[in-house]
């Protein structure tokens, strides 16, 4: 007999027991271990992914920071350069300004020195010129400079054009026939008389003439001359005109010299 039923049943039971044993000792532990390993690997991969993402985030963060730093540095350098340039310009400007001020002051000093010199020269010239004229007149015409001045003044008074004479007469009328003759030197009684006579003859026979001697240019007087004043009118002869011309020439020469020096 090929099939023994008792053996069949026994083998069936044996097989079921084997199924249980293998399930207990083989499949379950092995599957569990494999699942755990799978889980473990998945977790590690996830962790690695997370770490990678974090690292990438940090990397981009640091890159951003580094580029920001570079930008800041560039900005600072440019700012510093601009400031240095501005400072340089300011210092240059200040130096130029100082230079200009110094030049100006120097020029002013020189100008004032020149003016002083000018005046000095003029004063000396004046003295010299008058001295010379006086000497020449004394030698040649047996006359003093002052006499000549008074004579010239009288001639001028007498040679006044009609229009001028009328105006002067009108002014004299206004001031109650009082006239003032001022001179830079003391007039002799003869000269005073000559002038008075001329005034009376030319302007008004009843005019009162007063004389006054000025001590010098400081008093606003003539450098060397005579003037006649009444209310609102003035008639003068003076060497100032000549001296003015002289002064101008001297000034021109000095200017030229100074320009040469600078």
């Amino acid at each position, binding site marked *: 007999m*090929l099939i*023994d039923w008792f053996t*069949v049943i*026994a083998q069936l039971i*044996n097989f079921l027991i*084997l199924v249980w044993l293998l399930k207990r000792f083989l499949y379950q532990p*092995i599957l569990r271990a*494999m699942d755990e*390993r799978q889980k473990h690997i998945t977790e590690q991969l996830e962790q690695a992914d997370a770490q990678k993402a974090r690292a990438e985030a940090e990397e981009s963060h640091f890159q951003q920071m580094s580029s920001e730093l570079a930008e800041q540095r560039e900005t600072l350098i440019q700012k510093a350069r601009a400031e240095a340039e501005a400072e340089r310009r300011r210092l240059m400007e200040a130096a130029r300004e100082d230079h200009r001020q110094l030049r100006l002051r120097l020029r002013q000093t020189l100008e004032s020195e020149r003016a002083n010199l000018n005046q000095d020269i003029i004063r000396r010239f004046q003295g010299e010129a008058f001295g010379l004229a006086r000497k020449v007149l004394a030698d040649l015409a047996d006359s003093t400079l002052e006499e000549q001045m008074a004579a010239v003044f009288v001639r001028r008074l007498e040679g006044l054009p009609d229009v001028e004479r009328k105006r002067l007469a009108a002014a004299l009328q206004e001031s109650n026939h009082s006239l003032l003759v001022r001179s830079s030197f003391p007039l002799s009684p003869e000269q005073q008389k000559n002038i008075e006579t001329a005034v009376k003859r030319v302007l008004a026979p009843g005019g009162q003439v007063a004389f006054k001697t000025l001590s010098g240019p400081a008093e606003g007087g003539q450098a060397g001359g005579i003037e006649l004043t009444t209310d609102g009118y003035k008639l003068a002869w003076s060497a100032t005109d000549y001296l003015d011309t002289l002064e101008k020439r001297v000034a021109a020469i000095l200017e030229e010299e100074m320009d040469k020096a600078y």
Partner: protein
Amino acid sequence: MSLSTDDIIFWEYGFVKLNATIVLTWGIMFVMAVGARLITRHLSSGIHISRWQNMLEAIVSGILQQIKEIGVQKPEKYISFIGTLFLFIAFAALCTIIPGYEPPTGSLSTTAALALSVFVAVPLFGIGEKGLGGYLKSYLEPTFIMLPFNIISEITRTLALAIRLFGNMMSGAMILSILLVISPFIFPVLMILLGLLVGMVQAYIFGILATVFVAAATQAGGH
């Protein structure tokens, strides 16, 4: 000369008897269970594992993969049954390299028992998956006329499974016995090698067929 290990009886008391088939099966069961226990006692779920664990993992995952490829939805649920079928038959065949050993699967009783277990287990799995009504309905598909044919198919395929395994196992052992009698010693060695191969193929076929039946019974369509 005996054709079946059933005929080698060590102890008998009426209906109850202890023959070589049962004893050999116990031996195989013992070796497999103890071996699995020894290896799985110190399992590691880390990266470094022992060679034995590696071997068992390869076997288990290979079986799992095969079951999955055939189309069973939850291979973990059925691996105990299908995997044990395959491993028992394969191990029984593998042990033929031991001199004097006769595979218990060469006994028609054993193969009948295995086929019966498939015969019983397949409907149980089907009911477990789809419920009793759902499973019984699959017999009426595509129409109720197919009911007798479905029942016949269910029985015959169990019978076919049993006979197939028995025939192959027994024939291997029988050819070996005959050749041992008539030929020199070299030739039977080749036949043992062939027997090993046939045993493995049979284990694979038996497991695959059982899986196909399980898949058919548990799939939603029931076809």
